[in-house]
């Protein structure tokens, strides 16, 4: 039955029925979440009219509300959530560490630092902020990699190192925000908590394009991920150029995190949780990648709906929702695996 297919992955050809069902269920979950975010709000739009607005049979106010105001935000949550989930999966694979995700080891904070440098120096263009976030993310990745290098298998210590780096960067971020004028500080601290407020079509074009390109590249490099999930030795045995693959994948993953951070601010713990939850549902390999993307998208969409509507009249930035819920998840995860950590 089993055969090594041309992806170098020992598996039955195609998806098992159970996995097809799982992916279908996740996709359905995502559709429901998106539907919620399109219909719930200060004006409730019932699902039939939402569909009408999307296919163009509704017009006027409903169309404006659904297509121009709510759809970009929902789309941003889907794309950003998927990007964060995939980025987390790549990081956790490369560090061979379930906690080695970009938000835990300080990359998200570093990308935000880069973005803040650009913003507080007065250059407000979206592209400049994205470039700043990319530079910040790569620089942080390089620093963490240098601090980890040569220490053998650090296990969970990479997380301690990352928390230290992250704390230093967070102090720099707080300092930059305090220097800013109050109006700038209030808006920056909403954005600084990770928010999809004010995301419209025009702000969305660049991030969506970049995420699309990076996602496609990741899809092309998927065999590398699967091979690395088997361990370096086995991957090498399968003919993977391990170091080159890792560097390439890392670049893609840092890019994904940085783009999201530039567009929405630092959003924590989606990158941590989505790959974990996906791993609980499906086996490693191709399905894991798809399930992670779907779960990341669904998580961020639901978190944004919660943030917008949990307290009537007061929107909470989605990053705070993921921080609180994801932090609680992290406590549970760490305590559950207490015996395995060293």
């Amino acid at each position, binding site marked *: 039955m089993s055969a090594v297919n041309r992806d170098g992955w020992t598996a039955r050809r195609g998806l098992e029925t159970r996995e097809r069902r799982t992916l279908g269920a996740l996709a359905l979950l995502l559709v429901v979440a998106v539907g919620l975010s399109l219909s719930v709000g200060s004006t409730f739009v019932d699902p039939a009219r939402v569909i009408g607005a999307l296919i163009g049979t509704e017009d006027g106010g409903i169309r404006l509300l659904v297509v121009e105001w709510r759809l970009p935000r929902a789309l941003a949550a889907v794309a950003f959530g998927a990007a964060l989930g995939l980025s987390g999966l790549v990081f956790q694979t490369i560090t061979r560490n379930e906690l080695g995700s970009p938000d835990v080891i300080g990359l998200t904070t570093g990308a935000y630092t880069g973005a803040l440098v650009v913003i507080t120096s007065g250059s407000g263009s979206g592209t400049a902020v994205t470039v700043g976030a990319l530079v910040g993310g790569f620089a942080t990745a390089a620093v963490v990699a240098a601090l980890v290098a040569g220490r053998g298998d650090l296990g969970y210590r990479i997380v301690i190192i990352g928390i230290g780096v992250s704390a*230093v960067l967070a102090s720099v971020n707080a*300092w930059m925000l305090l220097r800013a004028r109050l109006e700038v500080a209030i808006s920056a601290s909403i954005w600084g908590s990770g928010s999809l407020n004010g995301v419209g079509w025009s702000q969305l074009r660049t991030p969506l394009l970049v995420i699309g390109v990076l996602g496609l590249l990741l899809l092309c490099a998927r065999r590398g991920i699967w091979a690395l999930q088997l361990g370096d030795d086995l991957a090498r045995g399968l003919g993977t150029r391990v170091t080159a693959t890792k560097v390439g994948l890392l670049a893609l993953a840092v890019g994904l995190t940085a783009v999201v951070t530039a567009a929405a601010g630092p959003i924590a713990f989606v990158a941590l949780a989505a790959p974990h939850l996906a791993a609980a549902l499906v086996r490693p390999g191709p399905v894991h990648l798809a399930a992670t993307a779907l779960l990341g998208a669904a998580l961020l969409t639901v978190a944004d709906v919660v943030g917008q509507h949990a307290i009537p009249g007061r929107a909470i930035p989605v990053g705070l929702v993921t921080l609180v819920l994801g932090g609680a998840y992290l406590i549970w995860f760490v305590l559950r695996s207490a015996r395995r950590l060293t």
Partner: protein
Amino acid sequence: MTGRRAAVAGVVATAALAGAVLLGLTIGSQVVGLPTVLDAVLHPQDTQLHRVVTESRIPRTALGLVVGTALGAAGALMQGLTRNALADPGILGVNAGASFAVAIAVAVVGSSQFPVLMVAALIGAVLATLAVVLIGSVSRGNPITLVLAGVALAAVLGGATTALVLIRPTAFLAMRSWESGSLAGRDLDLLTTAGPAIAAGLLLAVAMTRNLDTLALGDDAAVALGVDVRRTRAGVIVAVTLLAGTATAVAGPVAFLGLAVPHVARGLVGSAMTALVPLSAVLGAAVVVVADVVGRVVISPQEVPVGIVMAFVAAPLLVWFGRSAKLPQL
């Protein structure tokens, strides 16, 4: 021998503290000579320099001393309680618990009276400390587990605090500088409320150190030696709460001080709590006062809050711990 080492360390730390106070009183956006400082205290006149001394330098230095003493001692106690050299009320979420409770008091109750904030901070701190102790017992003495769970707890509480503050824009203004841990613009009158609480915390801490040292031999041995284990733990928890909670109410959340200072102190006098707690208290005071001075001058005329300076300077210690081959054992 240990006695002499402790005495030498005590003298050195006291000298450092005196130097720190001198810096704290004289250095700032403008340098005020020591004679002028004395003059301002003894013969206060309504000049600009004298006002700087009496209204800014003295309150900041005094509050810095109190906050530093409290957090230094709280860090050492916390490390003794959890048997973990990475423990710190800031890293493990105790200060975040106090902050969250303060944010509730400001945003929901609508009070910014200091006694109210302090009571809130104490309630938040004791709940968070209990959570840390609970986490510590579930994590079966694994140092990294405790730190990770503590960081996650701090993240949850920090996120909830920010959400509360954003929901109430009026609270945003009140919490803005407080949130990063600052001594600027604090009233010396705070000490009449905060001082006794911290003094009580220190007394309790000192009273607990001997039993805490015995506890380090293991619960069974401690019981055999006549130590009431539960009472000792409870006493330490109360002391940590009084110290970290009050310090947070005064200055906002200041992290990493309780990590770094006991680490340095341990290098000087070893890990016996009887020497470690007092020395950490003195060194903590010196460090906070100096960190406040650094924050005043580094981008003068603007200021960097002391909490940010501390994180910037002391968080790399966490990186160093992560890189070291063996985690320090207590």
